[in-house]
């Protein structure tokens, strides 16, 4: 019986001319955005590679100079985006593309595309991810809003009841049929997207796993809308009322909830301004953390320890360069302060993210948007992972130049020199993106929210089935 209902629902979709128009529109919009995303993704990657190669060449050919002066030349590193960034570019517009690594200071990422955008960019970013999260639920609603009301209006529901069709089986068949029909409508656009992905990127196993997880999550998301739309269709006598109610829910989930959530998060977890953030770091370096003493006191104590370690009474008598040692000590303290402030800031961002979830009570779209960004590797967690890797690399190459400076100097003399062979021996920054497990771990809260929505929507559908009357 259920298979017959599923077959009938599919037939209804395939023979309905309006849905062919919808399918074509979805295909055009989704393919268009996806192609644009892929083109942008590739352009960004090419620019990163070109700039990275140039910067490396400039680094390698600095000529003869003091190693610390060479370190001040700095190294640019770039976050490699996953192929899935073509599906959902996530925070790329806002988190920046480039990290400049230099001595003494941990920088934030810079050169975000959003900063280069014109006025139109401020009205929101359109991407395949936006279509999938915000627009496709409208298609589900368009397919399902009259799933039951139409049967009631046309009298077929009485016919079905008179045949003894159980309401639960009828709705289950309609629900599955609707999801299958929806997938049929999506099929052409999905096929094109997969072909484009395969042709333009070397997809690793991890990318495929992420893609599968993302597809499964989107399926869950659309199932929520389908179940809610069908339940609504049961409770309203007129298709029009059901449609208006569902559109109100859609706007609450897609448009209102993110803004309400963001406002609540900003209120509950304020984020310091950039000026205050950097001023805080500077103050803590100068005045010291807890009982560490101020900058001068710490340097004085360190000097005593170094003289004792090397068994001399004056820094001039040290067998190694004191300036490099002292700088190394100060940088170590600075790194500690930077790590503290950066962690505090990023923890605040994460707490804000959790507060935004309160608005998930209005709809599942916030959670879906978040999962989409995370599985595409374009969220704050992946950004943090990259920044931490870059910071480790900064420690490596600054440490290396400090070693050269220290070992090639004596006492207070700063005669250390490095050559192109030294600069060339600095390993290039290589970044391994975290695995799908990392993404799933960070998406767990959002996945649970989506699951809760799905369970609630299905339970409501089953409850509604008991109230189904012809």
């Amino acid at each position, binding site marked *: 019986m259920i298979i*017959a209902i599923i077959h009938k629902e599919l037939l209804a979709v395939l023979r*309905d001319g309006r849905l062919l128009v919808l399918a074509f529109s979805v295909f055009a919009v989704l393919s268009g955005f996806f192609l644009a995303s892929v083109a942008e993704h590739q352009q960004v990657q090419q620019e990163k590679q070109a700039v990275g190669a140039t910067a490396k060449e400039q680094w390698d050919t600095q000529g003869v100079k003091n190693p610390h002066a060479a370190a001040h030349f700095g190294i640019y590193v770039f976050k490699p985006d996953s192929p899935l960034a073509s599906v959902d570019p996530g925070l790329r517009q806002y988190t920046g593309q480039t990290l400049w690594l230099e001595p003494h200071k941990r920088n934030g990422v810079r050169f975000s595309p959003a900063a280069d955008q014109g006025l139109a960019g401020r009205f929101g970013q359109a991407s395949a991810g936006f279509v999938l999260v915000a627009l496709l639920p409208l298609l589900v609603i368009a397919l399902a809003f009259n799933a039951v009301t139409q049967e009631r209006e046309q009298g077929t529901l*009485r016919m079905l*009841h*008179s045949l*003894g069709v159980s309401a639960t089986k009828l709705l289950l068949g309609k629900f599955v049929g609707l999801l299958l029909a929806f997938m049929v409508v999506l099929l052409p656009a999905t096929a094109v997207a997969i072909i484009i992905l395969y042709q333009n990127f070397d997809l690793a196993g991890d990318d495929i796993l992420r893609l599968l997880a993302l597809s499964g999550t989107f399926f869950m998301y659309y199932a929520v809308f389908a179940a809610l739309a069908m339940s609504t269709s049961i409770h309203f006598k007129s298709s029009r009322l059901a449609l208006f109610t569902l559109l109100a829910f859609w706007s609450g989930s897609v448009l209102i909830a993110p803004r309400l959530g963001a406002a609540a998060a900003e209120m509950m977890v304020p984020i310091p301004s950039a000026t205050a953030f950097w001023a805080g770091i500077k103050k803590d370096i100068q005045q010291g953390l807890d009982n560490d003493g101020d900058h001068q006191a710490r340097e004085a104590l360190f000097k005593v320890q170094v003289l004792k370690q090397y068994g001399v009474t004056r820094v001039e008598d040290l067998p190694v360069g004191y300036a490099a040692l002292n700088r190394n000590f100060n940088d170590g303290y600075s790194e500690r302060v930077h790590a503290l402030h950066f962690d505090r800031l990023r923890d605040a961002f994460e707490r804000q993210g959790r507060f935004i979830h309160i608005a998930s009570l209005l709809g599942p779209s916030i959670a879906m948007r978040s999962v989409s960004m995370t599985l595409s590797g374009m969220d704050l967690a992946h950004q943090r992972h990259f920044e931490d890797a870059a910071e480790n690399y900064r420690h490596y190459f600054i440490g290396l130049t400090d070693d050269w400076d220290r070992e090639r100097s004596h006492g207070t003399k700063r005669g250390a020199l490095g050559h192109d062979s030294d600069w060339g021996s600095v390993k290039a920054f290589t970044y391994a993106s975290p695995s799908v497990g990392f993404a799933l771990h960070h998406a767990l809260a959002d996945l649970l929210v989506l699951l809760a929505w799905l369970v609630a929507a299905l339970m409501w559908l089953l409850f509604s089935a008991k109230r189904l009357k012809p």
Partner: protein
Amino acid sequence: MSPNKILLEAKQLVVNYKNHRAIDGLDLSVPAGCVYALLGGNGAGKTSTINTFLGFNRPTGGNVFIDGESPDQNPAVVRAKLAYLPENVALYEYMSGLENLSFFCKLANIRISRQHAHDLLVNTGLQSDAHDRRVSTYSKGMRQKVGLAIASAKQAKVMLLDEPTSGLDPSAANDFAQRIRAAADLGMAVLMATHDLFNAKQVADRIGIMKAGRLVEEFDAHTVAHDELEHKYLAHARGLL
């Protein structure tokens, strides 16, 4: 099947819609092989009676039985025994007559071959060239024939008809009446709510007149004269009786 076995029965049936009493102490029985025509004006309770036998209304008082089973207690068993044809047989417009028949049969757990489905439609008088056409192109009479084919496929013991000839041309109404008569002659019990006196007299064995939810007159359709039936019907409708 015994021709006297009661297949449709209402005992002291009362149905209320909120504060309105739609059926008020109805006693009615339809044996196998009998066509019972329920006459009455709008709001007399004819459709409410049909809906209660279908299980769409829950009795406020009294009981209804189909072949001894209560639709309220055993809806699945009851619905397997009955066929229902409303005034406008509701079919899926985007499917053909044949597809509609197959679909409704599947829902009723009846397996029929494509050829059998064609035969059923032919038997109801639906021309072969219409079988594969979409129902959206069908006339009301053609839809009724698909409905009859569904009833026939179900081998239902009971048929409930709600204004079945309303809107049919005389030829189609006559054709429909003959097919209902033929179904009853094979042992089916038929309860038909209608405004159509001529049709009732033509096809029914018994005729009842309903007014304000009560069965106020009953006739043997074979013995009552058309004029007498018309006089009584109009008198009840105008409140003269």
